[in-house]
Structures are given as C-alpha cells and as structure tokens.
C-alpha cells in the first residue's frame, strides 16, 4: 500500500489527538495542548505523520493513519540525542512497514540534527514490540546496564520544588 511520511503541522493536531485517544482508551487527549506545546516558538516536541491516499482512507474517512512524536535530549557523555515519545499506526494499517518507516524517519531527522542516540521506552510485558525493536538493532539499556526510569510528580514534585 502506498503511504507517505511528512512533518506534522498545526492542522494535524486534531488527528494526532484522535489517534492518541484511541490508542490509549483514555479520556480525550487535548488537541489544544498539542497545538500549544508542539507548534509555538519553542516547541516541546516535533511530529511526523503517515498518510495514505484518499482511496485507502479508513471507513470514517481518515487518511492520516500513523504518527511519531519526538524531541531532542542530551547525553552528558555522548552529546545530542533524540527521544521518540510516541510511535503509533492504526491497527488496520499495520504490517505494511509504516511503523518502521516512521521510526526510520525519526532516526534520519535525529542524525541530521547531529544526534548520536535515539532513545525510547517500552513496557517489558510488551514482548512483540520489544522483540521488534531489538530485531532492528537497538539495545535494552535497562536490562543490559541496569538503568531504572525514575519519576517525581504531583505532591512529591511540589515538595521537591520547595527550597
């Protein structure tokens, strides 16, 4: 099936929000937040969209059927890096190389920006995704080097921010 990958623009936020909401079975993701956070002067993230031609649109009429969100990070050891926050393809469009194409595009954009690493997180029970990523050549920093993901939020973060 024909598809194209391109940079996301402000108008795509509606479709990105739709796909985020559907993929997570949670209450609606805010399109307004995506517009504000991704398309202002100093965006927190960048996006790419996978699109199919009209004749392959979904029964609801959507042609934007996958996306990846990423942002630039930094390693004090290796320098510039890119983090892929989300990678998603609508179920009926899977198995056609679209997910792989989105991930490759993030890697290409990262290299063009001078990055040496492409990082992301996966849940350990998500075996099919883990196996896919490992087969593409990445390594498991948690399993191999013992790094744990730590988070402070809510009251703990408020408390931490007290001088």
């Amino acid at each position: 099936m024909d598809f194209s990958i391109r940079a996301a623009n402000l108008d795509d936020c509606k479709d990105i929000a739709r796909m985020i909401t559907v993929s997570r079975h949670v209450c609606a993701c805010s399109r307004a937040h995506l517009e504000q956070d991704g398309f202002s002067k100093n965006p927190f993230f960048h996006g790419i969209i996978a699109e199919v031609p009209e004749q392959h649109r979904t029964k609801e009429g959507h042609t934007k059927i996958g996306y990846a969100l990423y942002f630039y990070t930094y390693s004090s050891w290796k320098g510039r890096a890119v983090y892929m926050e989300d990678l998603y393809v609508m179920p009926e469009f899977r198995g056609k190389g679209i997910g792989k194409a989105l991930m490759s595009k993030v890697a290409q954009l990262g290299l063009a920006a001078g990055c040496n690493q492409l990082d992301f997180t996966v849940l350990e029970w998500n075996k099919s995704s883990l196996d896919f990523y490992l087969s593409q050549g990445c390594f498991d920093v948690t399993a191999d080097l013992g790094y744990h993901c730590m988070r402070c939020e809510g009251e703990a973060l408020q408390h931490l921010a007290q001088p």
Partner: protein
Amino acid sequence: MNFKIRAAKKDDSKDISRLIMELAVYEKMPDRVMISYKELERDGFSSNPFFQCLVAEVPEENKSKEGHTIVGYALYFYTYSTWKGPSVFLEDLYVMPDFRGQGIGKSLMSKVAQVGKEKQCVRLQLLMRDWNTPSLDFYVAKGAQDLTASEGWHFLRFDGEALDKLANEASID
C-alpha cells in the same frame, strides 16, 4: 558552608566537563564520555540549547584542594509526555565528594524542580543505575517512584551502526 546555586554560563563549560568526568568515574564508565567542554559550549549556550545547567559555587576561601569553586552541577532538559504535558528530565546531578552532606545536592535538585514548575512541567524524570543504592534511596526519599520496578518500563536505545542503518532505511524528502 556557604554556597550558591546559579544558572551555568558558557565559561563554566570546562568545570562542567570536569565534573561530568568525575561522575562517569563514579558510575564506573569513564571510557564512555565522548564529548568535551567544546560540545557543551556549542550545545548548551546557543539561542536554542539542547540542555540547561545549574552549578553550585563556593566562595574562594572554601575552594577545593585543586582550586575549584564550582563543586557541583545539575544538567537537565525539557521533555514531553503526550499523557501529561511538559516535563523536565534530570540528566546529571553531582556534587564533589568533599562538599557532600551540606545540602548542595538537595538544593540543586530543588532548583531544577522549581525551574520546571515555572515552565508548567508536571514531572521530573531521571535514569538511575540499579546498583546505586545511596542515590536510589535519596530520590525515593524525595518521593520519586521507580517505574522500572513498579510498572516494568525499560529504556531502549539505538546508537552507532544500528542508528545509521535505521536512518538509511528512511525515505528521502
């Protein structure tokens, strides 16, 4: 002991680089440090920096035996969660051994959290080595959750040849 926490300036890059190497030695991986103060200058102090940095400074009379007054740093950057919005990632936090136990580490971390809060960040995240019990305990005592232990999150990475290969498979615009 008197100390102050302030935003790093470009001139601090050599000191930050020195402290990065000390931290890498502590993490038992000094041979993994590939960047020097020059990359820090280029990437941290332009109009669109890849990272932000705070340094902890002591007065001249308390300088280290090698003559350093910059005795700690915190290096961080802004990230994004499509679940929750802007977040801050603490890449490095380090205080020279002779200056520990004075609240400098806690002050650096609080300042990062404060700066993040001003930017509407809802999370502060970091990676921690599982053998680093003193640091793990420090963060958990401050209210951090270990998402790897509790939810099974793993951090994955493409670098080197694997990254080049992945990028080569992308379509050209």
